[in-house]
């Protein structure tokens, strides 16, 4: 319960900062703008044909579901990657602010454990990003519903995956922010982890430029724990486009990403517990 109170405290702190509001607004406006700019003539034309003649256009080569599939794919990829990217920028300084000298002592003087502070901070930041992603998703879905009379729950998967990806990145950013107490370093670590998580999908290609032996093994083992953002986002995009099969669900990757995130939080806990405030 105390964890949730800390998370609530983080949320209140975030919304008191103008930057967060600006970034969330940017996400929302960007995706709504994108939705308005989408080429939906095929969909609108088909809808008009249904209204006029009782059935859709059949002489065209491009079917409505194919067009929608591409739209959902694109938007899902954008939600995933832009969500993580902007999330890093928006939340990079939050933990440092909360755990800065003076404020952290105040927190520690309260009847809360160090573990609760860290987990609460993490959940609070994840909540902020989740809120932004849900806003973006809602904006996109709303525009599409009003414009094309079409609703799909597909992009929700991309939103959940985007949030999972952000959790992976932020857990390690939190650990870095505890050690460094530096916003640039925390942001850099976030971008590096995001990059590594994207590169990890091409691990085999990267390994092939190293000669067989210990050098390649080091590269191999270095990349292994990083979640495969590229594959997660591709799967989420395909699922959003309607190509949903349970057998295709990368369960190992999802659990692996959660474990990676948990490792980052635990490391942050280890670092926070050794700090002598």
């Amino acid at each position, binding site marked *: 319960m105390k964890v949730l109170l800390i998370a609530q405290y983080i949320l209140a702190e975030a919304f008191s900062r103008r930057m967060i509001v600006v970034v969330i607004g940017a996400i929302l406006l960007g995706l709504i703008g994108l939705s308005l700019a989408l080429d939906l003539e095929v969909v609108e034309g088909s809808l008009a044909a249904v209204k006029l003649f009782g059935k859709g256009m059949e002489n065209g080569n491009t079917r409505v579901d194919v067009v929608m599939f591409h739209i959902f794919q694109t938007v899902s990829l954008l939600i995933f990657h832009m969500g993580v990217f902007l999330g890093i920028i928006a939340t990079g300084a939050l933990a440092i602010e909360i755990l800065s000298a003076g404020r952290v002592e105040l927190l520690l003087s309260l009847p809360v454990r160090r573990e609760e502070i860290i987990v609460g901070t993490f959940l609070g930041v994840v909540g902020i990003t989740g809120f932004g992603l849900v806003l973006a998703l809602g904006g996109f879905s709303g525009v599409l519903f009003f414009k094309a009379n079409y609703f799909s729950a597909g992009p929700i998967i991309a939103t959940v995956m985007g949030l999972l990806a952000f959790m992976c990145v932020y857990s390690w950013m939190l650990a870095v922010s505890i050690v460094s107490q530096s916003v640039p370093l925390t942001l850099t670590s976030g971008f590096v982890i995001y990059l590594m998580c994207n590169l*990890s999908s091409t*691990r*085999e*290609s990267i390994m*092939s430029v190293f*000669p*067989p032996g210990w050098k390649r093994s080091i590269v191999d*083992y270095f990349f*292994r*724990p*990083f*979640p*495969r953002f590229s*594959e997660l986002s591709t799967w989420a995009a395909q699922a959003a486009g309607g190509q949903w099969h349970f057998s295709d669900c*990368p369960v*190992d*990757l999802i*659990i*692996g*990403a959660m*474990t*990676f995130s*948990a*490792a*980052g939080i*635990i*490391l942050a*806990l*280890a670092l926070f*517990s*050794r700090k002598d405030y």
Partner: protein
Amino acid sequence: MKRNQVLYTLLALFLLGFAGYLTSRHDEKKGGNEKDAFQNAPIKFPRQQGHQPRQLQYQIKVPKETPGKKGPTQRKPETDMRAPLEKAVNAADGNPFLFVEFNGLQHNPLAEALLDCHKDQIDQTIKGVLDGFGIDLRKDVDRIAIAPDLFAISGFFEHFKLPTPPPGSASLQAENYGAGGQIFDLSQYADQNSNKNHHFAQVGENLLLISRERASLEQAIDRIEGREAIGVRPAFYGAAGDLYGQIAGAWLAPLQTLLAHNVDRESMDPQTIDKLLVRSFVDDHLAISADIQLKDPQKTPELINMGRGLLAAARFDAMNKGDKKLASILDQVKLFQTPKGGIASDLALPKDLVLEMLGCPNSMEGSPSPLPNGDNAGF
């Protein structure tokens, strides 16, 4: 507090390792057929395994004495029944020879697939040899040795019989040679297009020699019975794998050509390699360990660099073509200098590739692996 730090750090490391395991497991699932056991498991080469004789299907009976045959030089009975075969082909002039552990070789996945692929042809051959000579190739043959103009077979030949001569021909006459050899002239069976006669010799109940030249048989029997010097025994001599031997002289020509094909012909000395000692194990794949002796040891480092370069190029090429299996095989090729200045090399060929090379293309699963030739592998 300190206890918590250690606990949390260890837990974080464990979770990181678990995350790595999960992503690797995902890769393996995704890889499907591309990643088979061969690709994941490190190959054990004959060099690493040492001298491990094959477990023979049928125990070889060691004759205490060659019955009824007392030659000009009384010799002690062989305690190692396998030695005569080795002596028969290993001449003092360093000629090439190759041993095939025929009995042991039959009972492994690769050979079984090959036998299955050529079943009709093999069954016909087995029947022909059994009817003509009384030898069951599946049970009676232990080892085969091949040398220039000499083919030696060791095994159990109690039921060996002479082939029936063509109608109107005289029956075969044995001619005793040395202490325990009998030479037969098979000229009446010779191919009419061939200008050479065929001969074979039986040495005891366990060794048969076949050659076009009678002199080759006599020299082989002389070596077996100690009247002629034998060549230097390679370090791995005797049950060094499933296929092993010494490649030299004319047998090197294809390799020399292959080397010359991959480098500047003008600068390449076509006779760079002096001798090649090979050992190989056949299992789900063909693992080969080769020791290359160069005529000029000073060229060893250059040749190793060249070989490694060709392998690296081939690996890149395989990766670019998406042939992960070949790339994985090339990864495991080892090429290094021996203390004596030669080159040691370990390489492996997967079962599918070997079968394809031996005319069984239907056994290939998925896209065929390119052959490691000059076009894409460089060696």
